[in-house]
């Protein structure tokens, strides 16, 4: 049973437990690494390289607490909003290769936009969240779903996500703390946080 984190202007917190299907299950337990082996190097690394990277064609999760997710294409192809209506508005899920700008003019009836991370290292989701916030002007919930791990949460929060369906099996307290990993930032992003260059321009910074 995994948890949903929410990020508000002030802090992150655990919002609720998520139902089956709304989060990615935990993988098998990791063996602890043998440090002596790690420090002895990996020898010939070439056989470990696998150039081809397969990508799924279906989203990692199918559900949210408001019901089943509707795929972006289904939503765009709907006959009328009533056919897909859900109590809290429709939850639309976007895969990382899809184009969120297609939602322009099609936002009525949507309660939540979820962006799928098939792999934690798929950086497309962060660009999509940014576009949802800045280009679509979407102010309601944007949720990261799928392979949502502790060490990417800080970045996700900065790109406009405000809810996070954690992959199961992670340290939830550490996940909540991850949003505070850095006290300052260098970029203007969808979170609207004051960034370094802006700070520098308005305030005489103290040399370290």
């Amino acid at each position, binding site marked *: 049973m995994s948890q949903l984190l929410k990020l508000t202007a002030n802090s992150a917190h655990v919002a609720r437990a998520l139902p089956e299907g709304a989060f990615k299950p935990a993988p098998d*337990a*990791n063996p*602890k*690494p043998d*440090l002596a082996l*790690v*420090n*002895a*190097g*990996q*020898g*010939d*690394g*070439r056989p470990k*390289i696998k*150039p*081809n*990277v*397969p*990508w799924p064609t279906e989203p990692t999760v199918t559900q949210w607490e408001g019901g089943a997710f509707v795929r972006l294409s289904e939503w765009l192809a709907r006959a009328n909003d009533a056919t897909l209506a859900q109590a809290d508005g429709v939850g639309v899920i976007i895969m990382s290769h899809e184009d969120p700008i297609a939602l322009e003019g099609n936002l009525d009836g949507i309660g939540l936009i979820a962006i799928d991370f098939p792999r*934690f*290292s*798929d*950086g*497309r989701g*962060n*660009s*999509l969240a*940014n576009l949802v916030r*800045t*280009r679509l002007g979407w102010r309601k919930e944007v949720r990261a779903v799928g392979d949502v791990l502790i*060490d*990417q949460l*800080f*970045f*996700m*929060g*900065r*790109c406009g996500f405000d809810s996070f369906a954690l992959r199961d099996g*992670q340290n939830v307290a*550490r996940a909540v703390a991850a949003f505070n*990993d*850095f*006290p*300052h*930032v*260098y*970029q*203007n*992003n969808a979170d609207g946080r004051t960034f*370094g*260059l*802006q*700070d*520098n*321009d308005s305030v005489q*910074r*103290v*040399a*370290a």
Partner: protein
Amino acid sequence: MQGCNKGARMYRYNDIDQAIVDARVTQFADQTARYIDGALSEDEFKPLRLQNGVYIERHSPLLRVAIPYGLLSSAQLRTLAKIGRDYDRSYGHFTTRQNIQFNWVKLEQVHEILGHLAKVQMHAIQTSGSCIRNVTTDHFAGVAPDERVDPRPLAELMRQWSTLNPEFAFLPRKFKVAYNGATEDRAATGVHDLAFDVFRDATGEVVLDVKVGGGQGRTPRLAVTIKRGLHWRDMISYTEAVLRTYNRFGRRDNIYKARIKILVEALGCEAFSKEVEEDWAAIRGGPATLAVGELARMTAFFAPVAYLSVDRADAELAPLRLVNPRFNAWVKNNVSGHQRAGYAAVTISLKPSNVAPGDATSEQMDAVADLADQFTFGQVRVSHHQNLILADVARRDLLSLWEALDEMGLGSANAGLATDIICCPGGDYCALANAKSIPVAAEVQARLADKAEEIGPLAIKMSGCINACGHHHVGHIGILGVDKKDEEFYQILIGGRTDTKVALGQIIGKAVPRDQVAPLIGGLTDFYLDNRTPDETFIDAVERLGKDAFHDAAFGPKKEKLS
């Protein structure tokens, strides 16, 4: 050690910068601990450690430390020397991206090293991984006589924006950015994912020409210009549009086809540029626009020092050069022009014989730091040729400086010559190498040592595999290690260059076993010496005589001709 860079003409951290770098040390210590206790899997930890410059190499973990645009204070260099002593085997390796790497670190000690680095305003952030890498530029920036605009203030703005950039932390592949602000391109901008040529327009405003899609590796490509005359205030927003286009549409289904050059080529330059323009139109003039005073604020960090006026320095040098041929050769090859009369930029060659190119011992680093304090305002630069630069030496001090360098084994007079070989660590260190590089470079050096002065400018570049960390595609002569049924073979390339006339080299002949590499290259240089016209450099002779002529000289005649 805080405040150690005070007075240096380089960017100095403020409280924001320091807090970010300190937080990164804490974060990486935590990530390492979670990996060691099994909470993070191997696959989950790998991108995190790479984004902190930690590789697991053939025989040991390696830590690569960022040296933004190659600029170091003497205090920073001393810290690097100390890290080499305390955590490595008393040396470090300067890389072709103006960074330094330590080859023999222990994983559980990396966060300690990062702590030491943070105290001198350094870090290892984004020195590897599929993200925006360390920004590089001309190693003579700020002092080069042919400079239009000092690119370092813009490079620093880019460094800050790219550091821990949340949207572009997980790109399809690595992303390398370079700046050039001079007539002669010393930053190899043509082989970068994103590169900026910096100018002043007719009204005196700083503007940039933007190039994308250059790179070496498996599919070498030269960058194409997608934007001209971009105002510097739009540099970040335009870059954001380029990166977003790449992040979204760059291929992620095959790691060999994931660099931006593949996307630019697949879409075509115009279509790629159009995608970028569309995205940029939505953010142009927005919050990513650099504030009016930002360039001036940043430029002040790099302001020239109080140079002394030094007269008649060259007249005084002449008799010293006459009586000391080794010093004379060093002045000729390792001393470059400077914007100020009476000053020079000095290249300290890290390519003596029998040392891996780019390696410096901790003792040498300490000594260079002392010499930098004594002779050049406490600053050292790293060039992408894997040499060190003292950029502001009074010409009257050249003999004293050379004598001190020579005593440390750093007086080699071979900057830019055939023995100044760029070379990757290769099979001796690297887990991905197909072949060893360092011993091959040593054999070529030995073969050409006696003739290097006569041959003159010649860039030989050696990579141990197709990833091209040793830049073999753009060497006047390139050497590429290949694996043929578990045996090390080497291909020879000719005709590459990184200057303003940037070009990719072409393979000549079949791959040869290691013992034939140095003799073959000797054959190429002999052919050049026999056929050159007065004052004609090697690369000019290749272009005049054709690659076939060089092929035939080294390998014997062949039927099918090269283009």
